[in-house]
């Protein structure tokens, strides 16, 4: 049960999008540009770490049968507080990340990790888990967004990659493009794992 191991598992082996397949809804919506992907990823890291921390802190006082409504209350309250505080004290940052914060409440990764890990482990390990899952989520989002933005808009982080003659594939920025990209990437990582295990 090392801290480093809990952190790194969220990056590849138990990547929330490509392996555990949680939080696909906001992923589809927010992965159309690398800029949005980074914004959402950063916000999710912050919320995941904090939510895991709080859930782990109160885990001894939460009766098992009503844990889900309690976790959801904690997460929704916390995200709303973050949203309000940002709007009041960090208006520039809020403008940049604004839309992503409310979207996080419906991100299953937060509840998923609260339920699967933070409610059963100590604070330090829960923070490591939250941080690792968040970073894994950010990396996955950036990879998906890279494909979608380059093919669907001809840019990466807003910087044009191709010349003016490039005709972007509009489909890539729309939901079907997200499904295609995520599907191919999950298949790709499954194939890598399959080869890795076959070689043992």
């Amino acid at each position, binding site marked *: 049960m090392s801290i480093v191991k809990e952190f790194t598992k969220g990056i590849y082996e138990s990547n929330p999008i490509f392996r555990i397949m949680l939080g696909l809804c906001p992923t589809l919506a927010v992965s159309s540009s690398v800029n949005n992907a980074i914004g959402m990823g950063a916000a999710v890291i912050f919320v995941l770490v904090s939510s895991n921390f709080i859930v782990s802190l109160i885990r001894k006082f939460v009766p098992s049968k009503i844990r889900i409504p309690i976790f959801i209350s904690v997460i929704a309250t916390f995200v709303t*507080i973050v949203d309000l505080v940002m*709007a*009041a004290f960090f208006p520039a940052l809020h403008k940049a990340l604004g839309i992503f914060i409310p979207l996080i409440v419906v991100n299953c990764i937060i509840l998923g990790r609260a339920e699967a890990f933070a409610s059963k482990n100590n604070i330090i390990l829960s923070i490591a888990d939250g941080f690792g899952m968040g970073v894994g989520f950010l990396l996955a989002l950036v990879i998906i967004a890279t494909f979608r933005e380059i093919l669907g808009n001809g840019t990466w982080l807003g910087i044009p990659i191709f010349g003016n003659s490039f005709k972007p594939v509009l489909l890539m*920025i*729309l939901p079907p493009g997200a499904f295609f990209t995520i599907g191919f990437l999950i298949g790709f990582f499954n194939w890598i794992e399959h080869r890795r295990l076959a070689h043992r």
Partner: protein
Amino acid sequence: MKDIPRFAATLTIVALIAAGSLAWVNEITKPKILIQQQKELKEALAYVLPGSKTGVIVPVKENRKIIYYMGYKDKKKKQFIGYAFLVLSKGYSSTIRTLVGMDSTGTIFAIRVLSQQETPGLGSRCQEIRNGETTPWWQKQFSGEKATNICVDKDGGQIQAITGATITSRAITNGISAKAKWLLKKIGRSQK
């Protein structure tokens, strides 16, 4: 099920703490957020009514509500610039608030989309600013157009809709056109 009272008590405590902390944070942040919004509106007014920084912008009220603004280059209100008005459009997934500045003939100086919650990556691009620029690229095309005569390209007009976000583009464009027609009619009537 003798757990029920215990569960009810725990859930009530959690709900009370949640509601309590949210109410408290809301109270603390409400004035600051309001100040932010007023600051943004003031900046937007100065932007859509060019030249008004040296002068004054006067709100015109009806039934205690501001229905439009009049901008002047000088504080004595002798050099009239034009009108500024707020447009509320029903977008794809949110109400879009746009501030429009136009002269007395109905030609748009500039617009500024103040707030929207449209689809990230599609409709939300109406506020997107390109690398190295300072104002949203999509809004620039409105400057110089006749406010009462604008349409998106799909409806036969000259405003280029955002790719994949026709509804958002159309909502903003048609909202401006309708409100401008209303305002010019109102001013025309009051000048008789």
